[in-house]
């Protein structure tokens, strides 16, 4: 941040955000998100910020958010991937065909516990290989990523069509469907335990970072600032868990469950959904991708290549192979997104993932990823996906006509980039 260099001259007026070393861009995005939420909450007479809607919003965001984290790497290395929606469709088709036709033909009956893991494995392999192939075309054969993935957009959409004859494939394996959202949640107790573990992990990470800086005699934030950061992390995580736990499973669903077990539901029995497994998957993806971006050589090379490809090459980084890796990661994430998207529908449909490429790119860009390369964050992309989804479902709830919904989303994308450009100009953060 350019403004950081000025702190020396205006020490007295250092504000609280600077002391906390918050990213101003992140604050802006959170501000925009809160604004969107409040506006829709008012417009819908308080229906927007209910546990039920927040739960739905969360599971609707997962698929795009997972892919957006990979798109950050692609865009940071100055490439683009227009094929993610189509690749999602191919991965989804492959997984659907594997579990409904190929594995049963090999003797694994419907309901076998092996079906879901094997189908997921095949899907991830498919996504990874196709992504690596894209990366090879871009990195080694030097075909522009725009062209490779524009071609891929047509190819993979129609490979999916060909594989399934354009038919809807389902129902998918019950275990597979657990990753779709409402079909598989952790329940209240497990969610609280997970929340507490997450808070502990966040506090440990903050503490560890401080200790590393002290060990090397660098300046550190005041203790109260670290404490405040920990408190904010704790409130956010536990608040999120509490909200998802507050969304209660409808009575008739519970009654049916008890019936199925041959029991009678006690009076006044309630149960919250808690964290969906799909959200857990997104959290895992986000943590791993953030670690890759910040704490591994691979991540360092991705950002270095985006900042100055020649410098990266001259520093001994194999930028061609790096491109293959970046696109392979994107492919694997498309497969995971396909898993969540098809599991949520409980079947594979021919139009699954249509227009997702645009949503994913928009999420990454709204999240502060610079198309010029070298700049971008994983949390930003996820927040971008959340903002896009909030806009979309908020407008649907308010009753905005479908064409206007897309007009608004498109305009917001352009506006977000304009604001970003103005922001960078002001801070000199070109």
């Amino acid at each position, binding site marked *: *941040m*350019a403004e*950081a*260099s000025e702190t020396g001259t205006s020490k007295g007026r250092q504000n609280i955000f600077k002391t906390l070393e918050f990213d101003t861009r992140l604050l802006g995005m959170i501000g925009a998100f809160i604004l969107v939420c409040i506006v829709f909450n008012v417009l819908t007479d308080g229906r927007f910020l209910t546990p039920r809607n927040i739960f739905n919003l969360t599971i609707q965001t997962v698929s795009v958010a997972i892919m957006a984290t990979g798109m950050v790497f692609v865009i940071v290395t100055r490439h683009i991937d227009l094929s993610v929606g189509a690749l999602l469709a191919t991965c989804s088709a492959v997984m659907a065909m594997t579990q409904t036709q190929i594995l049963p033909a090999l003797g694994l009956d419907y309901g076998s516990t092996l079906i879901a893991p094997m189908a997921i494995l095949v899907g991830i392999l498919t996504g990874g290989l196709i992504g690596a192939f894209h990366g090879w075309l871009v990195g080694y054969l030097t075909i522009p990523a725009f062209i490779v993935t524009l071609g891929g957009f047509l190819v993979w959409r129609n490979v999916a069509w060909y594989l399934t004859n354009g038919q809807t494939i389902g129902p998918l394996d019950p275990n597979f469907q657990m990753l779709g959202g409402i079909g598989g949640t952790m329940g209240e107790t497990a969610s609280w335990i997970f929340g507490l573990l997450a808070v502990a992990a966040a506090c440990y990470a903050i503490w560890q970072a401080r200790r*590393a*800086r002290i*060990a*090397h*005699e*660098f300046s550190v934030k005041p203790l109260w600032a670290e404490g405040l950061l920990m408190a904010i992390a704790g409130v956010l995580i536990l608040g999120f868990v509490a909200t998802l736990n507050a969304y209660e499973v409808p009575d008739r669903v519970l009654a049916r469950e008890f019936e199925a077990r041959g029991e009678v539901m006690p009076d006044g029995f309630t149960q919250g959904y808690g964290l969906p497994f799909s959200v857990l998957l997104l959290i895992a993806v986000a943590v791993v991708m953030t*670690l890759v971006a910040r*704490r*591994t*050589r691979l991540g*360092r*090379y991705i*950002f*270095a*290549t*985006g*900042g*100055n490809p*020649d*410098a*990266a*090459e*001259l*520093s*001994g*980084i*194999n930028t061609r192979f790096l491109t293959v890796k970046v696109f392979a990661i994107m492919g694997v994430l498309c497969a995971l997104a396909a898993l969540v998207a098809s599991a949520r529908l409980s079947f594979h449909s021919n139009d699954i993932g249509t227009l997702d490429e645009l949503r994913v790119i928009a999420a990454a860009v709204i999240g502060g990823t610079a198309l010029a390369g*070298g*700049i971008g964050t994983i949390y930003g992309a996820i927040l971008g996906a959340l903002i896009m989804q909030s806009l979309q479902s908020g407008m649907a709830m308010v009753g905005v006509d479908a064409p206007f919904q897309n007009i608004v989303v498109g305009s917001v994308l352009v506006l977000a980039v304009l604001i970003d450009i103005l922001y960078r100009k002001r801070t000199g953060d*070109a």
Partner: protein
Amino acid sequence: MVDRTGTPLVEMRDVSVSFGGVKAVDHVSVDLYPGEVVGLLGHNGAGKSTLIKCLSGAYSMDAGEILIDGKTVDIQNPRDARKHNIETIYQTLALADNLDAASNLFLGRELVTGAGFVDDARMEAETRKIMGRLNPNFKKFADPVKALSGGQRQSVAIARAVYFNARILIMDEPTAALGPQETKMVAELIQQLKDQGIGIFLIEHDVHSVMDLCDRASVMKNGALVGTVNVGDVTDEDILSMIILGKKPETAAA
């Protein structure tokens, strides 16, 4: 005076590079001894950068061979060059603008923790140590290097070469973008590196810098070597006429 009786640190023999039909480097031989600074001079397009990029691994040569400590080596890419302790400071300052000084210094050779993660704190500490030696005024460790001045960026680039124990250093117009004070700093740095026994190839446009900094000068014109002279034996007029006319002075021999 540099001792040139032993085996040269680097010998580039009969190197040729063509781009399409154009011979950018035409059967050129140069050598470099430990603790010596050899200037490479010539007009734009004379082939000096192309020649030296064969040594740094940015280009591969069509013919000829490179010997280090008298042994033939195969340099296909920058990674190979680094293996032979060849470090290059490029005119365009090959730095990633979006990363901080420590990340740039260790780019491609990050320090990692036991778990295989990059150790940012240790890299920053090492960077502070070496910058304290080279450029004590350097304070911007947390900023991306695009926030730095030309001299500060140059010192990051030089620190990178020094930190990794370069034996052979290639500098492509290291002072071109710098003010007088910063130029002086770089000149002192070159002297310091020489004293440590590092051999330096210095690509330069400015004849006066060459007279000040170099022990020998190799002049190229149109891809061919005009000649190599002892800087102490010639005047800047002689070197200029080599660059412009492509004529080697009668008196000088090296």
